[in-house]
């Protein structure tokens, strides 16, 4: 661990590499986290199956790219559309029953959904690690000390563009207004003629679609396997806790920060501890936040 720190000190250019890699990952976290904040804010549900949507989006791209030979970048809309349908179906089957229930039921029910999706993927697609080759080249900076695969740049830009599109959609479209009205006060929205059931369905499906697109970017830039879901769910949760529910700028900065922090931790502590770092960081952040609040006699709830 100390060796790795010294290495960073001796060769500062390595930090640049870690930082760039981290920011690129962070952009994808931002998508999943934004979706989670949307569902949380509008429906008061914390969707534990968030990471599974990311994983399934990745598999859509993986199969379209390897079996049908379509270029993976072109399959992003397909992944989003497939997950949109899945999200809609899940809402009509399960989620609409738990929208008004207490939070424990919604957490446990979505936890059940996440296990179903994860294990279905495991049975149907196998437990192997998969990736979809984009065939793009690599950019070199600083005499080859910093390497950035072009696909990461593309996915970084795509992630931010998607986030921006979503932001504009929520702000300007009719449905976006209905979604925001429902988030503010579902009862008042109903009285004003908003079909909240449809709004909930659209919100949940939209969230699944965002995650699907994120997953599609994940499989091109890194890799996917059936068990990666929970890590994305907890990262999203952590980001939303740090950023707050309403703030998109906060989500972006928290995501990029998390991506960078995680990458540095993976380098310094060793990759075997990278996941441990992420989950411990979640606990530490929650503890700190709660400690801050407890001084004002408040608490996280």
């Amino acid at each position, binding site marked *: 661990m100390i060796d790795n720190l010294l290495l960073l000190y001796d060769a500062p250019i390595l930090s640049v590499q870690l930082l760039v890699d981290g920011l690129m990952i962070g952009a994808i976290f931002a998508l999943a986290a934004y979706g989670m904040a949307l569902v949380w804010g509008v429906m008061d549900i914390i969707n534990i199956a968030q990471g599974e949507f990311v994983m399934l989006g990745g598999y859509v791209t993986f199969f379209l790219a390897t079996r049908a030979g379509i270029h993976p970048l072109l399959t992003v809309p397909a992944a989003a559309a497939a997950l949109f349908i899945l999200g809609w179906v899940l809402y009509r089957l399960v989620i609409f029953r738990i929208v008004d229930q207490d939070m424990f039921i919604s957490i446990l029910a979505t936890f059940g959904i996440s296990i179903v999706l994860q294990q279905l993927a495991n*049975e149907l697609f196998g437990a192997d690690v998969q990736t979809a080759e984009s065939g793009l080249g690599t950019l070199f900076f600083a005499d080859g000390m910093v390497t950035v695969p072009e696909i990461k740049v593309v996915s970084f830009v795509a992630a931010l563009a998607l986030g921006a599109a979503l932001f504009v959609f929520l702000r300007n479209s009719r449905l976006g207004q209905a979604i925001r009205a429902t988030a503010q006060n579902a009862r008042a929205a109903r009285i004003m003629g908003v079909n909240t059931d449809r709004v909930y369905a659209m919100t949940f499906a939209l969230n699944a679609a965002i995650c699907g697109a994120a997953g599609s970017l994940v499989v091109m830039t890194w890799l996917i396997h059936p068990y990666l879901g929970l890590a994305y769910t907890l990262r999203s949760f952590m980001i939303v806790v740090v950023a707050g529910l309403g703030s998109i700028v906060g989500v972006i900065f928290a995501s990029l920060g998390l991506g960078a922090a995680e990458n540095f931790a993976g380098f310094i502590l060793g990759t075997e501890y990278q996941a441990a770092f992420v*989950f411990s960081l979640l606990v530490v952040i929650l503890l700190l936040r709660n400690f801050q609040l407890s001084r004002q006699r408040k608490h996280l709830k």
Partner: protein
Amino acid sequence: MTHRTRHLLPYVLIGLAGLAAPLIAPTYLVQLALLWMMILFALTWDLCGGQMGYNSFGNILFFGIGCYVPAVVQRGLYRHIAEYATVTGGEVQKLTLTQYFTGFALGLALAVVIAVAVGAILGSGILGMRGHYFAICTLGVGIAAGEIANGWEYIGSGSGMLAPIYPGTANARPIFFYYLFFLFAVMCFFTLKWMYSGRFGLAINAIRDDEDKAEAMGIHTTHYKTVAWCVSGFFLALAGGAFGHLNNFIDRDVAFPGATFGVWMVLMAILGGKGTIWGPVIGATVFHVTQEFFWTYLFGWQRVALGLLIVIIVVFFPLGIMGWLREQWPEKFGETVDVAARAAPVSLGDS
């Protein structure tokens, strides 16, 4: 039969059946031992989840500590320091009976101490959160613990470590572990029953129903919450120690099985009925028996089935078996029923 003897009857019957099980069903002893472990799981989860309203997804942490600590103690206790320094955890250790049991008892004691200490330290911070945050924070704790165990070389990291082999006869081994789990489950049941019957039970129920009011009434809520979590940790560490030694091999997936035991304990408690003492016992028995009978026919699809089961139970039967019984026959649970009011339900709540 007098009222008192009728109340004692289930305890006597279950106790006798539990004691006599090695004679009746000697081939199923390991499954029966695990049944007692499941009952212990459901009871300890219900202490926080059902009675106190703090739904923890990370209680598996204590189980994992319980798995590892006795094995580590056994590994170090009867070796010379020079030999110990070269130990990697991979080799089989042969001990005499006395060494084995002394080491095991010491290991269990240390496991309990560590688990309770961890519970107290973590709990005093985490239990300040409520609702969503507590649930997800504990989920993080459970997984983080597993990941750390998976990376830590001292306890064998990814390749795991071996507990010493049971030195007695091959027949005695399942009997010993059966009675060990039986003892732990019975201890757990009566400890919880005793705790629920007094001020402690009232206090944690008050915390579940309205924590702010409970605090305003002068209950030191953090104190009670931490004690409740530590009690869960105490019994889970015991169960973990016994399970680690029964299984012999310990790694991340054995010690921190969040996707199996970790979820099952929640599911079993809900299936039986949260917030009752018999609910978790019934839920664990139903769940364990069903899974032992049917799981093997599902050929790997059992985890999909488990997920579906969670969704179905949580969405459609959140009250569980005891809750259903209570709705059917409220008189048996000491509730007085106003028939007229029951026939014409009026709700003034907003919806």
